[in-house]
């Protein structure tokens, strides 16, 4: 339980931090796309017998890089790049899973999370990479903000917009791959987006919205963990449902 808590806290901090930059740029679909890709990573890990989180992180990073290159090259039309990766990776992972050891209950834990079975190595990996993500966001915050708000002005001022766009997607990739354990591949998108949208209802300044989103996310995760543990419910689903409750309350309290 203690390991689950630490892993949950780490994810709880980075998911909305990256999620904020995806939401304001309208890339919310990106998190789901990366989630499907990370599924493929887990499938590959099952095939070769390596640590699923590690392989998921690598696979998703590679895919993130590929997605940004394709989007930038303009050969493929806009959002369809995401559609290709989304369905393509799902198809690939179903094939690999069936080749590995047949579609079995192991799939449920990947789709919906299995934070209670997280190993010590898993936790260390998650915390280490989460620290990398946090440090990156903190150090690069002004430039990430500038690019998110206005790419052209950022470019004119000398900020390499393409680099920072790719960086955000890659940080999202890492976050998604790490979060499979906590809420599963199907619900990662929710964890990155819902606390952010809830925080935005309070109409605070941008940096404070990120802090509030982190608070909402941590509350959802911690209470979701305890609730699902004692009531024997699916952890991932419980966490996301609590996040939705927080969102609904935020929405109602801030009605204009």
């Amino acid at each position, binding site marked *: 339980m203690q390991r689950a808590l630490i892993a949950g806290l780490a994810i709880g901090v980075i998911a909305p931090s990256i999620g904020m930059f995806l939401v*304001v*740029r*309208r890339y919310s679909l990106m998190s789901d796309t990366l989630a499907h890709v990370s599924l493929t990573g887990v499938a590959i890990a099952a095939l070769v017998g390596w640590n699923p989180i590690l392989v998921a992180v690598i696979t998703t990073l590679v895919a993130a890089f590929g997605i940004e290159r394709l989007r930038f090259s303009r050969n493929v039309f806009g959002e369809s790049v995401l559609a290709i990766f989304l369905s393509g990776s799902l198809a690939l992972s179903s094939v690999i899973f069936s080749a590995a050891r047949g579609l079995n209950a192991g799939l449920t834990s990947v789709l919906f999370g299995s934070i209670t079975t997280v190993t010590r190595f898993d936790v260390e990996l998650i915390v280490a990479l989460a620290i990398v993500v946090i440090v990156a966001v*903190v*150090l*690069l*915050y*002004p*430039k990430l*903000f*500038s690019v*998110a*708000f*206005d790419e*052209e*002005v*950022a*470019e*004119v*001022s*000398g*900020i390499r917009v393409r680099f920072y766009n790719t960086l955000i997607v890659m940080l999202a990739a890492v976050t998604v791959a790490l979060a499979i354990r906590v809420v599963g591949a199907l619900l990662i998108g929710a964890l990155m987006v819902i606390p952010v949208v809830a925080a*935005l209802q309070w*109409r605070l*300044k*941008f*940096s404070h*919205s990120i802090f509030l989103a982190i608070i909402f996310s941590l509350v959802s995760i911690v209470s979701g963990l305890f609730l699902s543990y004692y009531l024997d419910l699916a952890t991932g689903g419980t966490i996301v449902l609590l996040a939705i409750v927080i969102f609904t309350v935020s929405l109602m309290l801030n009605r204009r």
Partner: protein
Amino acid sequence: MSSANNITPVIAFENVSVTYTVEPVIDHISFTLERGDYVGILGPNGSGKTTLLKTMLGLIIPTSGVVRMFGKPITELDAHERSKIGFVPQRISEGRIEFPATVEEIVLSGRAALLGWTGAYSKGDRIQAEEAMTVADVLPLRDRLITTLSGGQIQRVLIARSLVSNPEVLILDEPTVGVDVGSQEGFYGFIKQLNNERNLTIVFVSHDIDVIAHEAKTILCLNRTLVCHGPSREVLTGDVLERVYGKKLRSIVHGH
């Protein structure tokens, strides 16, 4: 530093052409602008105004020819040199008005490119931001979300952002589209002040002949090629306007 040199033109286009597919969008454009110029770029839709502006800003690399800022090819400028260029894009740009940030956060972001790796704005940065907000008369709005501001107010915020890096050149793209006439007058009065008091070189693009005739000291007429370049009083003849707009237009120069 070449910016201290009074002889070097601030902006120089040397035989610049930009071609996307077959025909050049702008064709063998050459001109120089001096420190303290107040230039209006005039031309109908499709004349290449936007392309010219983006090439001037270094957002587009010319197919042939060289663009120089402060004597150096624009591609060779570093972030510190680029801070001397202020850019105010067209207000109507997707997503900008819906971005959940305060005026102060947005104005501060004008200094993001100048930060080192520490990733934090310094006290000096914040003082610059305060000064810029004061000059642009948006200081009382500093804690307001930009989503709650009027078109004219947003325009002033974007100007404040462009002023925060102490530019020597201010480039504006269609600055008063969608702004009512009353606010327009105040706006151009403000720009004239910047031009007079700080010797700020001003370049703005407009499709509005009235405004350009009234406000700009110098005019560049564009219709794929440079049709005119000179003091607005001399340049706006029926002849020139016909070449720019392709039909007989009475000269509408108001008294200066």
